[in-house]
C-alpha cells in the first residue's frame, strides 16, 4: 500500500498514472492466465478420470474373461482330456496377469485405495484357484490320474474356489464404482475451488483498479485544491500565501510558477508602495508649493486670469476677484466662448477686447498687450498682457492674462502729455516773441540804434532765451525717451563730416575760452548708420559739455577708430572719443554713465541748460545701438567714448580690413 500513499517522491502526473496502470495491467493479466491454467488443469483431471473409468472397467472385465477362459478350458480338458483345450487355459493365465498389471498401474494413478484392497482379494482368490486347484488338476491329468481329476471333490473344490474368485471380482467391481465416485467428487471440488479462486482474483484486480483510480483522482484533486486555494488567497490579497511543494512535478512546476508570480507581485507591490509613499511626500511638497504659489499669486497687485490649453478658465487670483467683485466659483471652469457675456457686463470695449483674446487660440506663441476699459463695478483702465505658459516639457499649458490697473498711470501720462503740450506750445510761443523781438532790437537795423548798456543787457536776455529754449527741447526729448516714442530715422552718414560741422558751429564758444581743439580722425571716412539730427545732437552735447568743463586754454580732442563687433548689434562699430584735459567731476561722469539723470542738482549753474543733456545723449546713443562711457582720472583728463554702427557696406569693408 505504500506504493500509493507515498507522495513525497516527485513525479509527473502521466508517469505516475502510467506506472500504476501498468501494474494493474500485469495483475489482471496474471489473474487471467491463472484462470486459464486452472481451467486446463480441471479439464485434464476430468479427462483422466473419464479415462480411468473406462480402463478400470476394461481391465477388470479382461481379468474376469481370462479367468473364465482358463476355467472353461480346464473344465473341457479334464472332461475330454484333449490337449487342445489346454490352449485357452494356458493363454488365459498371461492375459489375466497382463490385465492385473494394467489395473494395478491404473489404480496407482488415483485415489483407489479401496479398489487396491479389493484387487488383492481378487488376486488371492485367483491365485488360490490357479495354484491350488488348476495346476494340480493339470498335473493329475497329465499324470493320467483322470479319476482324481474328475472326482466330485476336486470338481467341487474347483467350483468353490472359482466362485470365491467370482465373488471377489463382483466386490472389486463395486469397489471400483465407489472409488470412482469419490474421485469424481474430489475433481469437482478442485474445479469449484479453481472457479472461486479465479473469481476472487478478478474481483481483487478490479478492486485494485478502482482503488488506484480513486487514489489518483484524490491525490490530483488534493494538489489542485492546494493550487486553487493558494491562488484564491492571493486573489483575496493574502500576499504571503504560497503553494507548498507538490508530488506531481508538473503541478509542482505550476505551483512554483504561481509562487514566482506571487513573489514578483509582492516585489511590485513593495515598489508601488514605496512609489506611493514617495508620491505622497512629493504631493505634500507640491501641495505646499501650490499653496505658496497661490499665496504669491494672490499677493500680486495685478489680476491674473489663467485659461487652460483646452480653453477653460483654470484659475484667477485675489485681485481678479476684487477687481470684478466675483467669486472663483462664478468664473473658474467657464469655457472661453462664454466669457464674452462676462466681458460685455464688465468692459466698455468688450467686443474688441474679446476679439483680441479670441486670436490667442489660433496663435499659441502670441504675446501682446492690449487695453480693457472696465465700467463695472468701478471704472478702471486695465493693461492686459497675454502670455503663453509653457509646461516643463515646453508643452502648451495655457495662457496667462495679467490685468494691471493703469488708471492712475494713464492719468499721469495724460497729465504728462498735457504738460508736454504746455511746454512745447506754451513755452515756445512766448520764447518765440522774446527771441524775435530781442533779435530785432540787437540787430538795430530795423528798430534803431541802442546804447552799449542796452546792447549788453539785451545780449543777456538773448543768451538766456537760448538756454531756456535748449532746456525746453531737452524736456521734450526726455519725455519722448521716457515714453519710448522717440523715432530714429537711420540713414548712412559721413561721420567725419558731421564732426567737422559740429566743431565749426561750436568754434566761437571754444575760441572764446582759448581752448585748443584738434581732430585726430581716421584717414578713411566712416559711414555710420544714424539719424542726422540726433547724431549731430549727440556730438554737440558732448562737445558742449567738454568745452564748458575744460579749463581755459585747455585741450579738446576728437578721435575716431574702428571698434569691431561690440554691443547689442551684430555689426561692425566705430568708436568716437571726445577727450578733454579737464577733470570731470564724479557726478558728471555718473550723469553720463547712468541710464537716467538722478542727481537733481546740477554741478554748476552753468550747466542748467544741459541739465538733461547727459541722460538724453546716452539714450540717443543707445537708440542707435551704441554704448556711451564717460571716464575721468584726476590729473590725467577725462573722456567720452561712444560707438555707432557702421553702414552695412562699410561694415563689411572694415571687417575685411580687420582680418588682414
Amino acid at each position, binding site marked *: 500500500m505504500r506504493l500509493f500513499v507515498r507522495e513525497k517522491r516527485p513525479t509527473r502526473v502521466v508517469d505516475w498514472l502510467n506506472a500504476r496502470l501498468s501494474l494493474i495491467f500485469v495483475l489482471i493479466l496474471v489473474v487471467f492466465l491463472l484462470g486459464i491454467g486452472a481451467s486446463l488443469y480441471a479439464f485434464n483431471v476430468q479427462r483422466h478420470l473419464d479415462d480411468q473409468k473406462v480402463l478400470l472397467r476394461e481391465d477388470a472385465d479382461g481379468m474376469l474373461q481370462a479367468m473364465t477362459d482358463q476355467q472353461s478350458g480346464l473344465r473341457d480338458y479334464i472332461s475330454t482330456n484333449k490337449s487342445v483345450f489346454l490352449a485357452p487355459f494356458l493363454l488365459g493365465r498371461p492375459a489375466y496377469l497382463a490385465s492385473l498389471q494394467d489395473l494395478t498401474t491404473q489404480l496407482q494413478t488415483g485415489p483407489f485405495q479401496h479398489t487396491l484392497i479389493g484387487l488383492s482379494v481378487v488376486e488371492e482368490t485367483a491365485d488360490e484357484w490357479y495354484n491350488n486347484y488348476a495346476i494340480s488338476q493339470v498335473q493329475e491329468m497329465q499324470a493320467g490320474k483322470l479319476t482324481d481329476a474328475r472326482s466330485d471333490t476336486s470338481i467341487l473344490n474347483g467350483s468353490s474356489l472359482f466362485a470365491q474368485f467370482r465373488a471377489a471380482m463382483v466386490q472389486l467391481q463395486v469397489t471400483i464404482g465407489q472409488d470412482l465416485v469419490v474421485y469424481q467428487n474430489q475433481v469437482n471440488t478442485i474445479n469449484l475451488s479453481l472457479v472461486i479462486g479465479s473469481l476472487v482474483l478478478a474481483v481483487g484486480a478490479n478492486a485494485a483498479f478502482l482503488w488506484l483510480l480513486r487514489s489518483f483522482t484524490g491525490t490530483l484533486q488534493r494538489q489542485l485544491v492546494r493550487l486553487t486555494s493558494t491562488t484564491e488567497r492571493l486573489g483575496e490579497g493574502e500576499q504571503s500565501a504560497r503553494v507548498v511543494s507538490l508530488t506531481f512535478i508538473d503541478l509542482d512546476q505550476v505551483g512554483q510558477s504561481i509562487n514566482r508570480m506571487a513573489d514578483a507581485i509582492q516585489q511590485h507591490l513593495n515598489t508601488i508602495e514605496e512609489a506611493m509613499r514617495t508620491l505622497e511626500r512629493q504631493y505634500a511638497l507640491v501641495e505646499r508649493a501650490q499653496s505658496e504659489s497661490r499665496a504669491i499669486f494672490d499677493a500680486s497687485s495685478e489680476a491674473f486670469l489663467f485659461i487652460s490649453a483646452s480653453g477653460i478658465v483654470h484659475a484667477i487670483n485675489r485681485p481678479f476677484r476684487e477687481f470684478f467683485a466675483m467669486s472663483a466659483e462664478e468664473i473658474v471652469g467657464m469655457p472661453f466662448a462664454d466669457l464674452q457675456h462676462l466681458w460685455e457686463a464688465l468692459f466698455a470695449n468688450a467686443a474688441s477686447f474679446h476679439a483680441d483674446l479670441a486670436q490667442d487660440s489660433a496663435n499659441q506663441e502670441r504675446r501682446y498687450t492690449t487695453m480693457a476699459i472696465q465700467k463695472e463695478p468701478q471704472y478702471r483702465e486695465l493693461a492686459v498682457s497675454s502670455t503663453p505658459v509653457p509646461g516643463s516639457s515646453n508643452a502648451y499649458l495655457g495662457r496667462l492674462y495679467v490685468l494691471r490697473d493703469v488708471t492712475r498711470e494713464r492719468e499721469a501720462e495724460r497729465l504728462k502729455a498735457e504738460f508736454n503740450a504746455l511746454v512745447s*506750445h506754451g513755452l*515756445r510761443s512766448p*520764447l*518765440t*516773441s*522774446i527771441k*524775435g523781438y530781442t533779435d530785432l532790437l540787437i540787430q538795430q537795423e530795423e528798430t534803431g540804434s541802442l546804447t552799449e548798456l542796452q546792447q549788453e543787457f539785451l545780449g543777456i536776455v538773448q543768451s538766456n532765451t537760448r538756454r531756456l*529754449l535748449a532746456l525746453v527741447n531737452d524736456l521734450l526729448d526726455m519725455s519722448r525717451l521716457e515714453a519710448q516714442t522717440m*523715432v530714429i530715422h537711420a540713414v548712412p552718414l559721413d561721420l567725419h563730416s558731421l564732426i567737422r560741422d559740429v566743431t565749426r558751429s561750436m568754434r566761437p564758444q571754444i575760441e572764446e575760452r582759448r581752448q585748443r581743439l584738434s581732430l585726430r580722425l581716421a584717414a578713411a571716412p566712416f559711414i555710420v548708420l544714424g539719424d542726422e539730427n540726433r547724431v549731430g545732437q549727440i556730438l554737440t552735447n558732448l562737445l558742449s559739455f567738454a568745452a564748458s568743463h575744460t579749463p581755459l586754454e585747455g585741450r579738446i580732442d576728437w578721435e575716431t577708430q574702428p571698434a569691431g563687433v561690440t554691443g547689442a548689434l551684430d555689426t561692425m562699430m566705430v568708436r568716437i572719443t571726445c577727450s578733454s584735459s579737464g577733470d570731470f567731476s564724479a557726478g558728471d561722469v555718473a550723469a553720463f554713465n547712468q541710464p537716467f539723470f538722478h542727481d537733481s542738482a546740477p554741478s554748476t549753474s552753468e550747466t542748467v541748460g544741459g541739465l538733461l543733456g547727459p541722460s538724453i545723449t546716452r539714450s540717443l546713443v543707445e537708440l542707435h545701438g551704441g554704448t556711451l562711457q564717460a571716464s575721468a582720472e584726476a590729473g590725467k583728463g577725462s573722456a567720452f567714448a561712444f560707438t555707432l554702427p557702421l553702414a552695412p557696406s562699410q561694415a563689411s569693408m572694415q571687417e575685411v580690413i580687420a582680418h588682414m
Partner: protein
Amino acid sequence: MNSMKAKLVIADDEADIRRLIVFLLRSYDLFEAQNGKRALELICEVQPDLALLDVMMPEMTGLEVLTAMGENPLIASTPVIMLSAKGQADEIEQGLQSGATRYLVKPFESQALRTCIAEVLRESAPSPVKE
C-alpha cells in the same frame, strides 16, 4: 503788374507773434487771421500767393486748414508755410505730408523766415502774371 506786392495770409492765435511776423514781412501785402477758421476764409477770399499758418490754433488747426485747402481747387495749389512750436521730427513729417511746402519751427530766426518766404514765392512765381 509785376511790381504788385505778393499777398500773404498770416494766421497765428498769438497776437505778439503775429505782430512780430507782420513787422518782419511788412514789405508784403499781408492779411491777418487769429484762428484757423478765419484763416481759411481769408485764403478763399484773398487767394494769396502764400499762406503762413500756425498749427495750434482755436476753431481750426493749421493742419485742418491745409486739408480743407486741398479739397478746394481754387486754393489747393496755394503754397503754405507751417510755422509751429511743435518741432519734433514726426510732427514736421506730418505737416509736410498734409501738404505744407515748408515747415518752420518756433522760435525761428528772422532771416530764416524771410529767406524761406522769398524762396517759396520764387518757386511758385512761374505762374501767369495776375491781372
